[in-house]
């Protein structure tokens, strides 16, 4: 079997972070989070357990809502969505997310699409996973230029959800809302602490010698490269094809 690809490490890590959820929602253009959710479902079902329900926004096949685009948010407000993913043009050390732009709002010098549902879902979805493959100081900043959604809320503000982890192309961080801040939990194969420190604009807690991110085991990889990539191809055909090409290149 081919060696584990970096993106397979990410997918396997997401599946572990989602363990135990009943219903996970995934954004329309988020193939890696979707693959993680599908992998968890495949692993659960292979062991005879019930896998999570997966809602992929904007997908026709994976959309079982019948009340228009408001239903996802209503569903989250009722506590029926356990996990969700957020990216961000900027993410800071307090877990604040900026999806609006850089510079002097409203005349942003770089304008990103906008906050989407983040200013609500970040508050009411218990397990929000921050996911951004690009791990650079321009993404992971000391302080965001605009708060689309804050990492923590003042006491007395209703908050049943929030960030639990930050997954990047280089490592996995846990969010500690008491501090508040991130703790480096593990480093992906091929990267190290010094590199992560250099690529991160905020301070974070870490062990002197952080552990390596766990790799998916053989049977998990088999499910991922078989059933999951097949399922993924229905919604993200280009991504699934690219993964298979990458695996072929490694194998050859």
């Amino acid at each position, binding site marked *: 079997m081919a060696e584990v690809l970096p993106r397979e490490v990410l997918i396997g890590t997401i599946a572990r972070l989602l363990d135990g959820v009943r219903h996970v929602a995934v954004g*329309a*253009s988020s193939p890696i989070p979707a693959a993680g959710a599908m992998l968890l479902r495949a692993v659960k079902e292979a062991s005879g357990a019930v896998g999570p329900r997966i809602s992929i926004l*904007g997908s*026709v096949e994976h959309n079982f*809502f*019948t*009340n*228009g*685009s*408001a*239903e996802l*948010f*209503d569903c989250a*407000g009722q506590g029926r969505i356990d996990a969700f993913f957020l990216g961000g043009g900027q993410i800071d050390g307090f877990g604040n997310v900026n*999806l*609006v*732009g850089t510079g002097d*709002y*409203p*005349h*942003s*010098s770089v*304008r*990103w*699409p*906008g*906050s*989407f*549902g*983040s*200013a*609500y*879902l*970040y*508050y*009411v979805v218990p397990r929000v996973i921050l996911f951004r493959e690009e791990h650079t100081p321009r993404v992971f900043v000391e302080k965001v230029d*605009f*708060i*689309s*959604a*804050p990492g923590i*809320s*003042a006491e*007395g*503000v*209703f908050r049943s959800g929030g960030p639990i982890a930050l997954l990047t192309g280089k490592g996995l961080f846990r969010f500690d809302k008491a501090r508040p801040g991130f703790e480096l939990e593990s480093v992906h194969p091929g990267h190290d602490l010094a590199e992560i420190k250099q690529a991160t604009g905020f301070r974070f807690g870490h062990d002197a010698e952080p552990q390596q991110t766990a790799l998916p085991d053989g049977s998990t990889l088999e499910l991922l490269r078989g059933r999951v990539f097949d399922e993924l191809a229905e919604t993200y055909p280009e991504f699934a094809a690219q993964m298979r090409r990458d695996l072929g290149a490694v194998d050859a």
Partner: protein
Amino acid sequence: MLSEPRAMAKHIEPGMRVALPVDYAGVSMAMTRPIIEHGAGNLDLVCVPTGGLQVDQLVGAGLVRSVETSAVSLGEAGGAPRFNAAVKAGAVRLKDATCPAIHAGLMAAQKGSPFMPLRGLIGTDLLRYRDDWRVVDNPLADGGDPIVLIPAITPDVTIFHVPLADRFGNVWIGRRRELAAMAYASRTVLVTVERVVEENLLADEMSAAGVLPALYVTAVARAPKGAWPYGLWGEYPADSAEIARYANAARTADGFSAYMARAQMEPA
């Protein structure tokens, strides 16, 4: 009630508040050029809850005064070029929102209520820049528990595209219920459709469940492939190559004008 796109565009007057649906819900791209030709400007757009190609083209044509939205982008084709340029130049006023706040504002209007309370938002810069949103303490709690009030959103005009209408003006929106929410909240509702059928859509309970009744519909026009280059649910997929072509062309104002001036904008 049966009309055609050019005639329907005349319902739009300068300074009106116009609601437009999200990419995948049924965007009436067939109305974009008639609206631009008609030329009513100073429009306040409400994206339900996000905007894309149509918003970018109306902004590029100089018809837009403000945009209330949770996001504007061309999806996989990247950022919305004319919108982003207008933001940078300060040429459009932004009312940045979050998706459920737009839905909440429409729901307030649907009920004839002045506002709808919504969780979340407290501590965001969205709230900081929105002088029309208010924070109050939950009057039903024993003190504290701040919550945001979203004022009713009452568009002058709502415009969307769906697969079918009947000759009585009932339109079939399927499970895209945000289209109904927009219509309930709006004074004028303009709908383009792929097909107009003879039978009454309310006569069959199966189709009736997905019908927006003629009560809420001002005018209907037939426009085959009317969402193109967007797709239409249950009918045809998006033409991502064409959207990418637009994204590329509209990076400059001149490129945008050249793209829009192309005589034939019908689907290939």
